[in-house]
């Protein structure tokens, strides 16, 4: 079953490039049904979890490729499988203007399977394997447009990701040597007897591995690939560079911190301080760059950088509450950011405008899109009643509860970043709805809201943002259970 959900998308993706479809709509139906079917399978799988590890193959020694479903997997796999069908639907509409659709959808769908592989991996090696694979299947998506810019961006993406993985790999080795197992166990697997005097070395390795996985999660100073990768078609930027890929990085770090090294071992050490400071810096840095950026998608990408570090900040608090905060933001941010990216995509699709200063007065021409955008902007800022507030609240509550002074500083960073978020998001909203007195509305003639295929995902995400903001209790309770190891 687990293997099925991983391989259905991969195979479906390959089929797309192999089957000679008569019409575009046939391909759409085929793909969408495959993706939806897979999502349902994932749903079924998550509800009826197999309680043992399913081993696919043995590498050397005790290293194997294995899968299992635990709390973290439920969170991440659930998130992905909810978002993917909508994103695919959106992509159908968006990609009408792009070339080489087949190749695009091949890799786009394969990524689904690979990401599920990351989320369902039972041990560090399996996760690492799918993590590398993820890089490889997403590179073609980044270079899709084949402009010089895109190729440079994809190169950069590749170097950064593979390089990061190389350092994460060092962490993997240490877990193999010093851990009692490489399987994920909440609370860590380190064998303290074997470590003996080498605690500091292990901490150093933790930092290195953190930064290694952090490359995908765009931790400063390894973040510059993310805005560049924005040259990809918007469905990619939205789903992969706001959710699947970057969240895989964050997911991997959670696995590394809570399930491999273990918070007992890390809490209160200099390693915690270092990684926490890094995330705090990234939070502020990402936002400030977003404020300076005038290209819409790049601005959102910088915003992603900062928001990812929210998640990581939660991770680095290294308490169960911190993990709850991280998980909350991991899921909630996914919905908020994908929604705002889809708006950006819709704008680009309908009008071919890419820069913030070109958006004057568009709110009147595309009320639905900008309405959704406003909601997501407010949610990202953390207005109570929307999703962002809840996740920030959980993060801050965890930071306060941890009692560490640095974490208090982290709350400060969160709030500074919230302010900067307001600046870079609301300035767009204000432009769109209040273009100024002498703005000539006639210049916007012929622009209107996009097709239903684009609007449906947008509305669904907006509703999700609202629901998450108002009735987050079940979700947060579930995250609490995950952090407590009940699942």
């Amino acid at each position, binding site marked *: 079953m687990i293997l099925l959900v991983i391989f259905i998308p991969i195979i479906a993706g390959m089929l797309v490039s192999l089957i000679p479809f008569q019409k575009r709509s046939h391909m759409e139906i085929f793909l969408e049904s495959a993706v939806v079917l897979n999502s349902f399978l994932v749903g079924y799988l998550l509800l009826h979890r197999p309680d043992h590890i399913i081993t696919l193959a043995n590498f050397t020694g005790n290293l194997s490729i294995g899968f299992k479903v635990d709390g973290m997997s439920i969170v991440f796999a659930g998130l992905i499988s909810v978002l993917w069908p909508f994103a695919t639907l959106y992509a159908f509409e968006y990609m009408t203007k792009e070339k080489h659709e087949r190749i695009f959808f091949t890799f786009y769908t394969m990524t689904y399977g690979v990401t599920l592989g990351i989320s369902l991996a039972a041990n560090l090696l399996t996760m690492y394997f799918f993590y590398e694979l993820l890089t490889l299947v997403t590179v073609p998506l980044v270079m899709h447009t084949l402009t010089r810019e895109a190729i440079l961006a994809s190169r950069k993406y590749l170097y950064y990701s593979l390089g990061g993985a190389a350092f994460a790999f060092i962490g993997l080795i240490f877990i193999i040597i010093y851990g009692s197992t490489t399987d994920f166990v909440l609370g860590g697997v380190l064998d303290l007897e074997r470590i003996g005097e080498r605690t500091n070395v292990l901490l150093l390795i933790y930092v290195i591995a953190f930064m290694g996985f952090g490359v995908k999660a765009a931790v400063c100073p390894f973040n510059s690939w993310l805005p560049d990768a924005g040259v990809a078609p918007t469905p990619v930027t939205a789903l992969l560079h706001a959710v699947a890929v970057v969240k895989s990085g964050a997911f991997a770090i959670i696995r590394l911190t809570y399930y491999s090294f273990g918070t007992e071992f890390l809490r209160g050490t200099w390693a915690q301080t270092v990684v926490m400071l890094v995330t705090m810096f990234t939070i502020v840095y990402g936002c400030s760059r977003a404020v300076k950026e005038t290209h819409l998608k790049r601005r959102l990408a910088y915003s992603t950088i900062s928001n990812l570090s929210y998640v990581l900040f939660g991770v680095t608090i290294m308490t169960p509450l911190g993990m709850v905060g991280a998980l909350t933001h991991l899921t909630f941010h996914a919905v908020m950011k994908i929604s705002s990216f889809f708006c950006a995509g819709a704008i680009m699709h309908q009008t071919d405008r890419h820069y913030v200063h070109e958006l004057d007065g568009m709110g009147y021409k595309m009320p639905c899109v900008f309405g959704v955008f406003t909601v997501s902007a*407010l949610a990202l*800022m*953390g*207005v*109570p*009643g929307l999703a962002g*507030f*809840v996740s920030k*609240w*959980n993060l*801050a*509550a965890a*930071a*306060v*509860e941890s009692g560490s002074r640095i974490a*208090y500083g982290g*709350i*400060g960073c969160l*709030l*500074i970043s*919230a*302010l900067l978020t*307001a*600046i870079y998001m*609301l*300035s767009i909203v*204000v432009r769109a709805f*209040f*273009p*100024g*007195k002498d*703005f000539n509305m006639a210049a916007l003639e012929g622009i209107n809201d996009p097709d239903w295929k684009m609007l449906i995902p947008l509305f669904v995400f907006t509703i999700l943002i609202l629901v998450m*903001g*108002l*009735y*987050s*209790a079940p979700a*947060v*309770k579930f995250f609490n259970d995950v952090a407590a190891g009940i699942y």
Partner: protein
Amino acid sequence: MYYIALSVLFPILTGVYLLVRKEIKNRKSLLIQTGIFLVITTVLGVLALCLSGGGILTPFNLTDRLPILFKVDEISILFAVMTMVIFLCAGFFSFIYMEHEEKEKRYYGFYLIVFGILLALCFAGNLITFYLFFELLTLSSMPLVLHTGSREAIMAGLKYLFYSLSGAYMALFGVYFIERYGNTLTFSTGGVISSQAAADNTGILLWIAFLMLIGFGVKAGMFPMHAWLPAAHPVAPAPASAVLSAVIVKAGVLGMVRAVYYIFGVSFLRGTWVQTAWMVLTLITVFMGSMLAYREPVLKKRLAYSTVSQVSYILFGFSVMDAGSVTGGLLHVLCHGAIKAGLFLCAGALIYKTGKTRVEEFRGAGKEMPVLMWCYTILSLGLIGIPPTGGFISKWYLAEGALSSGLSGFSWIGPTVLLVSALLTAGYLLPLAINGFLPGADYDYGSLKKKEPPLLMVIPILVLTLLSVVMGLFPEPLIHYLSLIVEKIL
């Protein structure tokens, strides 16, 4: 009890309705609709005040430990009444004033939303509800600021937005900690900080208190985060400025009152460095605001600076934490509300009629519009603190409270600054009245003609003037009522 929810939801929903519906061709029908909405809201608000009687309304929970909670207490009544009166007056005033502006529908839409949110702020029963509506207030009042759509207005709107948000976030920083160290987030007289936590974490809690004061102080235009106010208030249409200056800044005041008297508790803060710092900041603001107003030639800007200074009178009263001064502060909330709203409406009427903006251009206006100018004069006197207006009473209490507080230094520095500032107030408000009535010998009297503004403009101004005078002449019941509140919260 559900009247609370109704009085909050009704204006917000109708406001949204106005925003999203198609453009209304007939201006009159728009005005009638808006008028009806305003009146119904007020009625609902009054009903809520009268009928809810201390009950608690919890519509839903934001997270399992964060309920959205409304209740009506004395402070709510005070602020809600002021809000409703001023909103009604300014609302009717704008029916005439907004004739020349574009996009009226949008204006009324946001106007109603802000009304609802302000009521919600008054009724908010815990910190998180307060924070929620505090942030929504910023967002929904920003369109009022940048309504005219000029570049200046848009920039001012953004400035307002970002300052306010940064304030809100500072407050939020505190909320996080209070959730941890407090017994509850619900406002309760005497504070919610558990004594254990207060003893263990005094240092951090004091910093939190200070941050929250600064944060809410942004909305109240308190130094050092006041710079947005003189930029934002004048660019809005006059009735909107009135609302902004008279009511919305009071949301900041309300926030500080709630934080100090209902969350931290007076006993925790009294005598700490936070109190000292707060007093210093308010006094600086009082003086600086007056000084800047004195030097400002443009009428509405001058009034905005005046707001900066006057609101800090109120804050000074609260910062002293003495029965007299707090009474004075609460009283000044009402007085300043009525007076400043009135003054802005006057300014609006003057601008509407003459199209001029600078103070020295209004020479002879008193001859042309005597009723208006008389109102202006009386209101000015009130703000300066000359009997028989309410301003005198409130300032009296403020000064007396400060003197009797026994705080070394501040007990005399405070009243001195207040006095100097009162002089400056006279200096910046009265020249207009003097010029208006006594344009001087070289003035061309021939060009004068009667052009009193329409009734719908004059009546709100008259009402506000009247209120300020009544408060000055018959302060007894009000003061009695306020002293009851003060007794409770101190």
